[in-house]
């Protein structure tokens, strides 16, 4: 080979090595995701030698520390569900209102300050929310509703709802902002008011982005939230069965894991059971993410046409 060819070859090799290095970094995320699944499964699978998976998911009692442990996570599954539904009832109207206000109505001057403020709100650590719930909301709810305890599902829902607002607001705002101008202009041209344009043209056009925001920023986050619920919902593994359960303590899956891992002996059934709960959580959020991804992707495809 001539000199020129060798140096060309060297350079190509160099470029390719760099490219593969970057590829490896990009692939890390998916590798980590895979490892998370593997490790949760590896550490959690032991529990299914003791209980059937269906009994694990639908069992109504949780007493993992007994000599003959009873491992039913239905109370926690429903606990997470209750708290999440409650939080969404708080967060979706507030978050969407803020998104519409910022994207369509706010005067340009205050638009950016509001956005920055909401961004800051999103940055408040969950332990701080939990702490404020503990010292302020818990006693307040107890007095106001004359409850035996202020550590309730409602307390968790209110806090988580406020926590989810900034995320829902900012993702929805992006979705609304992305609606092309002509949609609006066409609507105005037909003599619609601004409000009619928003409800009949803009929101329908951004509906998939907004749904994704609610699923991702709302449900997925809230189900996985740990510290806040741990600190304010009382953590009693009682099955919530009616609307009144909002005023009683509940325990979520996340709280169980955080609360009990310290006392569970490594390799024991209890330890496995907690990892199995982690696996359930992982699966739920994974599915929610796939759904959101699917909605967004289909939406993009539809937009291209």
């Amino acid at each position, binding site marked *: 080979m001539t000199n020129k060819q060798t140096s060309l070859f060297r*350079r190509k090799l160099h*470029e390719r090595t760099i490219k593969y*290095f*970057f590829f490896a*970094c*990009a*692939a*890390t*995320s*998916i590798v980590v*995701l895979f*490892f*998370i699944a593997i*490790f*949760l499964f*590896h*550490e959690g699978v032991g529990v299914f030698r003791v209980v059937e998976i269906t009994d694990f998911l639908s069992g109504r009692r949780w007493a993992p520390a007994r000599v003959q442990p009873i491992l039913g996570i239905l109370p926690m599954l429903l606990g997470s569900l209750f708290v999440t539904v409650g939080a969404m009832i708080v967060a979706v109207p*507030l978050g969407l*209102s803020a998104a519409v*206000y910022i994207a369509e*109505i*706010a005067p340009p001057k205050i638009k950016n300050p*509001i956005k920055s*403020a*909401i*961004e*800051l*709100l999103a*940055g*408040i*650590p*969950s*332990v*701080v929310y*939990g*702490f*404020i719930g*503990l*010292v*302020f909301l818990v006693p307040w709810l107890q007095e106001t509703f004359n409850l035996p305890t202020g550590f309730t599902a409602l307390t968790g829902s209110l806090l988580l709802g406020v926590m989810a*607002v900034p995320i829902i*607001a900012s993702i929805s705002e992006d979705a609304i902002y992305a609606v092309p101008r002509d949609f609006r202009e066409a609507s105005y041209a037909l003599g619609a008011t601004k*409000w009619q344009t928003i409800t009949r043209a803009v929101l329908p056009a951004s509906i998939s982005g907004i749904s994704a925001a609610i699923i*991702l920023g709302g449900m997925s*986050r809230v*189900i*996985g939230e*740990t*510290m806040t619920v*741990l600190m304010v919902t009382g953590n009693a593994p009682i099955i919530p069965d009616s609307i009144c359960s909002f005023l009683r303590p509940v325990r979520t899956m*996340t709280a169980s894991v*955080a609360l009990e*891992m310290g006392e569970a002996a490594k390799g024991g059934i209890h330890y496995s059971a907690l990892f199995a709960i*982690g696996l359930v959580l*992982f699966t739920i959020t*994974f599915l*929610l*993410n*796939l759904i959101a*991804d699917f909605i967004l992707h289909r939406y993009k495809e539809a937009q291209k046409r």
Partner: protein
Amino acid sequence: MNRVQRRRFAQATAFALLAFATFLILAIMVGIISFVASQGIGAISWEFLTAFPRSGMTEGGIFPAIVGTFYLAMGTTLISLPLGVFAAIYLVEYSYQGRLIRLIRIGINNLAGVPSIVFGLFGLALFVRHLGLGVSLLSGSLTLAFFVLPLVIRASEEALLAVPQGFREGALALGATKWQSVYTVVLPTAVPAILTGGILALGIAAGQTAPIIFTAAAFFTPRLPDSIFSPIMALPFHIYVMASESAHFAVTRHLQFGTALVLLAIVFGINITAIIIRSQMRKRRRW
């Protein structure tokens, strides 16, 4: 009312409600901040910030927790920032659309959705136990690094996408190789925006509790961490322990408020820095 008036009225009502909701959110935020600030400011003193806890954590300061949080945030950023920037370089500069890229993107999106406590479990199983790193600063930093990785990747991607295509074409047309064009023109242009992403990661790492409970955090350490293999105290965990797990939770309320105020101040300080850098950058950008 005629139709036009009715429509106007409906619009005015709707707008008022939307504005109300937005300002309610802002009011909640102001409420949270002023509540913590007013209750916590009394606890703040030089000693509180620079001394170790005393008397079974019922007195004294939070110095080791501040230091621990600082180390943890730094460790997390040191690991996640390069990894995230490199990943973003691949996604923006090197990859064309394709199955593999779609898969990687799904991976990133899903990683972003994994609950923080599940990261804690993962860190416990992989770093603490399997790799034998123990409950340590390193285990916690690694766990948090993967937790913030999707965010760092997204921020870096945005930073790279904001670099005009003309810069790349210009460099390549002068005979730069791909890597040279990235290294000499694209990256330097994107650095401020990438740093903003890094700063945000710092803020998130500082505020997280769930991922470090099993991987890095200790109730109390008599000394500052002397290596990356030491367990650490951290502000968020300290608040949780003092408020929820300690037997003296009632008598240490003022210390808890003080700690919460310090944590909020740190996190806000970090986030506000990022916001300011970003808006300065937008103002100064000339391409």
